[in-house]
């Protein structure tokens, strides 16, 4: 019986969209991810489709990301962003014309940008989600989704309505955009608490993922350890992260992305070149940021950076793909005597790691997919639904509360840097429940109903795990603080005008236009 390997990429970005400004730094996160990760991944998978590959990987598209990818306003801005980057590429080709090593790299970036532009605008007309959906329908990938705004569910649990709203709105958003029902759900940050499976089932999902100790500490003890999913007592399946294959990709010390021949992320012309030259392409013409044009390889610890050589990186990609598959095969071999439940490896990663942070990551994935095809007798790439269809008898156990954050539980999202958020989040949840009860007979489309929906959007947006994450790490801390504050304030405002019957339609529509997400939001999910 061959072993199965489920590679799961979780693609998520918080909802960032600021029509009140001509440009906004944090919106670049989406544009960079599209340029460097999502579209290269899409093109790679379409190549594999052409070559006849199936069940290559599982892709989780979070509802906020789905909404942003579908947003005409952001597509328009992406066009502008790409135009600007292509202009920079043109200038870089001119600037480096006397330095062949740099010129080759400038041309490489220019070509990549052209490919992204051709794919996104000419071929897909912006419909990236539609293209991934086609891959799902062709069984090349399995698409799943996540909670509405990536709320960290163990810390929303005190108000169960919040958890319900996050999961049900997430499921509905995915369905309404893709016209597919996601069979599985990526719990934000793999955050699980005992009993969550009931809400998962109610939202229409059949399986989810937890970190390794969520399985290993399950009750009763898992007979197959991490090499098989478990079945919660209510029949929802749960897959556990394989620590070995995770470490090979994630680890700063042992992981493949740290290879000295791979491209260095931090050395960027946005910081290296003179301000007069680079200012048109950076934030507000004054604040240096990453442009994506990076000419150096990692080189070594504390070593002077050397110029990036793609051919050398290609050799390492092949070597690392060989190593990854070889290790997986060895792991499967330990379970080859099984005659019932097939051996399974579940390897989840952030999708943005591939291409954006790890420049060669998408090529590495492609190499892994190709190599696996040589071992179909002993192991094959698969997706959770395929595995479950062929291995439907599973051990029944209760997983243990866990997350994939530092420490394995909730401390990363609940600590002295961000705990001030939670009284507000729980309070708004309670008040949203009261609003839904109070206005339960509001007609869809009526002003009251719209204000109620917008209050729900504000509540969900305030709950994003990203804000607590940024507040903890110090990255984009001020932005995270302001976003939390803005959404809580918008909720408070909407509650006030609802209760006092003083809804100002223009103000409401301005809020709808700024937070234009979840157009089909169902207020009942919040009760």
């Amino acid at each position, binding site marked *: 019986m061959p072993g199965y390997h489920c590679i799961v990429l979780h693609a998520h970005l918080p909802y960032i969209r600021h029509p009140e400004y001509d440009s906004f730094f944090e919106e670049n996160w989406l544009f960079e991810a599209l340029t460097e990760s999502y579209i290269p991944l899409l093109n790679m998978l379409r190549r594999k489709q052409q070559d006849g590959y199936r069940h290559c990987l599982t892709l989780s598209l979070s509802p906020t990301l789905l909404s942003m990818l579908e947003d005409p306003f952001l597509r328009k801005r992406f066009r502008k962003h790409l135009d600007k980057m292509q202009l920079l590429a043109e200038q870089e080709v001119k600037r480096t014309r006397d330095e062949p090593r740099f010129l080759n790299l400038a041309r490489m970036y220019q070509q990549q940008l052209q490919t992204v532009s051709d794919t996104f605008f000419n071929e897909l007309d912006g419909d990236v989600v539609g293209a991934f959906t086609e891959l799902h329908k062709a069984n090349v990938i399995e698409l799943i989704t996540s909670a509405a705004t990536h709320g960290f569910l163990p810390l929303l649990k005190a108000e169960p309505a919040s958890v319900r709203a996050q999961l049900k709105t997430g499921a509905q958003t995915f369905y309404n955009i893709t016209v597919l029902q996601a069979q599985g759900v990526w719990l934000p940050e793999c955050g699980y608490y005992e009993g969550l499976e009931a809400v998962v089932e109610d939202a229409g999902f059949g399986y989810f993922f937890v970190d390794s100790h969520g399985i290993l500490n399950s009750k009763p003890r898992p007979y197959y350890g991490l090499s098989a999913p478990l079945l919660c007592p209510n029949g929802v399946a749960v897959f556990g992260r394989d620590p070995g294959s995770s470490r090979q990709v994630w680890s700063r010390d042992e992981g493949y992305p740290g290879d000295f021949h791979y491209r260095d992320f931090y050395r960027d012309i946005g910081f290296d070149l003179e301000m007069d030259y680079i200012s048109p392409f950076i934030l507000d013409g004054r604040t240096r940021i990453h442009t994506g044009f990076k000419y150096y390889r990692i080189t070594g610890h504390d070593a002077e950076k050397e110029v990036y050589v793609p051919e050398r990186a290609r050799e390492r990609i092949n070597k690392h793909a060989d190593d990854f598959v070889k290790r997986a095969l060895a792991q499967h071999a330990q379970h080859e005597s099984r005659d019932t439940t097939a051996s399974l490896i579940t390897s989840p990663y952030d999708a943005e790691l591939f291409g954006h942070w790890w420049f060669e990551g998408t090529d590495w994935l492609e190499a892994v997919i190709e190599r696996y095809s040589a071992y179909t007798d002993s192991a094959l790439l698969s997706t959770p639904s395929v595995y479950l269809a062929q291995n439907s008898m599973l051990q029944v156990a209760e997983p243990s509360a866990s997350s994939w954050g530092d420490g394995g539980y909730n*401390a990363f999202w609940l600590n002295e840097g961000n*705990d001030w958020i939670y009284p507000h989040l729980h309070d708004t949840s309670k008040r949203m429940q009261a609003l839904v009860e109070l206005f339960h007979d509001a007609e869809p489309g009526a002003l009251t109903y719209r204000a109620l929906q917008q209050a729900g959007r504000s509540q969900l947006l305030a709950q994003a795990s990203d804000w607590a994450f940024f507040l903890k790490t110090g990255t984009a801390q001020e932005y995270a603080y302001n976003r939390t504050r803005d959404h809580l304030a918008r909720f408070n405002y909407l509650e006030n005008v609802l209760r006092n019957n003083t809804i100002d339609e223009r103000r409401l529509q301005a809020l709808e236009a700024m937070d234009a997400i979840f157009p089909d939001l169902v207020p009942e999910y919040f009760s």
Partner: protein
Amino acid sequence: MSGKKQKKHRATGSASSPAGTAMPVDPAAFSQKELRKLSFEISSRWFNNEQPAPRLTLSVVNPWRIHAFWHINPDMMAQALKTSDTPHALVIRFTDLTPGQSGKTGQATSFDIEVDGLNNNWYIDLWQPGRRYVAELGLRRADSTLRRFVRSNEILVPRAEPSTALEFNLAQYKGAKPISRTGTSANSSYSVAHLARLLPSFGGFPDVLSDPTSQTIEEPEFPGAPLKRVQNWDAEIEPPFEDDATPSPERYRYGKDFPVIQFATINESPAYATGNDSPIDFEAVPELPETDPLTIAPGNLTFEPAVVPEFLSPRAASVSGTGHKPENFPQINIDALDTFHREGKQLKASLGIVLNNDWSATASFPGALPGHGNKLAINVPANSPTASNRPMKASPQAQAWPAPKPVIALEETMAESFFSAGADNRDLNLSVRLELTGTAGPDKALTLFGEPVEIDEQGQFYVRVKLDKGPLLAALLRAQHGTNLEAD
């Protein structure tokens, strides 16, 4: 929310959008300036929920640590203290609901942790993973009975090691429950695509190559100073709570640096000697012991209004107005968030004062409680024409209106308050910010510290000022019917 049931009503919509219609009239596209102004205005005025519902919430941090935050209203404490003659302590009483872990009496075991603050949060280390708890916040009497304010949610602290249970039961995976499409946005004018058409036209980047710095952002007009970017508070505008260039959320959290509790008073502790995988009788869920809930409805503590002599001097924070009728001031809020330091520890107190439409004054302040030295003086001008008619709800030690009450420095207030920053402490640094919002006639004029306060087209005003260090003076707006009298 206080749990009061409100009368159900439905917005009837504006003239351009009658209730029940799904196709509202298309408004004009929004300008960036309009969106920024609205965003800033809502964020500034509506962030703080002035009356959060009383609650105690437990959250799991990890298998050995939990987090508790709570909020109770001052009048709950006042009522409880009024009816109690015996010594008491504010405690969180944890009850262990782990199945099969009841004590000799059949009741669940419990332990108390003494806490302080009406609005606070603590991290609490526990003994053992895998246990189930509920907690109650209340006043513990001398006989260990509890006058309960609020009861928490139930939590299950995670297991931290593999289970010893080895059953191997198989079942069949059935798949996901089918769902169907919801909503009507596909045929609605309220689709995201529709909303995008209402957004400001986007200039894009064509001009960046010629002069990237020439792109200017129009400033929304607000009292005080121009706004440059929402996420960067301009130096001339008071930042959310501090005058730092970069607001740090850590300053605004509840009870930063409160100690992690390592010890607690254990009432009955058979459970702590048992191992994680001791035989458990799953049917024997312990019974939660009875506690004595506080039955009053939560609301605001009403303080005695008093005249503060200093208020009459021009030094105090003051607002002057012309020709405002009391009915034009449905509510004036003064809201301050104070951060003060003591021995390297940072605490936070919040001050909210509301002058109601009927001229009664209400306040909540965790540092000042009846029975614990009501040092918070709320001042209303003595010559207010309606002063003698104001409804009074005297707090236990309040003086009768309009007898003057001396102003006491906030340092002393804190030192002697329930918050107990330390009786011997005289080394507090205090930053007080006042936010004033209200309604005036659009043709009226207001000044604050001699500076004009802008009144918008709807007659609303909003201004934020930082007060100098010194006695706490909560100087409320003075308004007189039909006069042009300036108050100071």
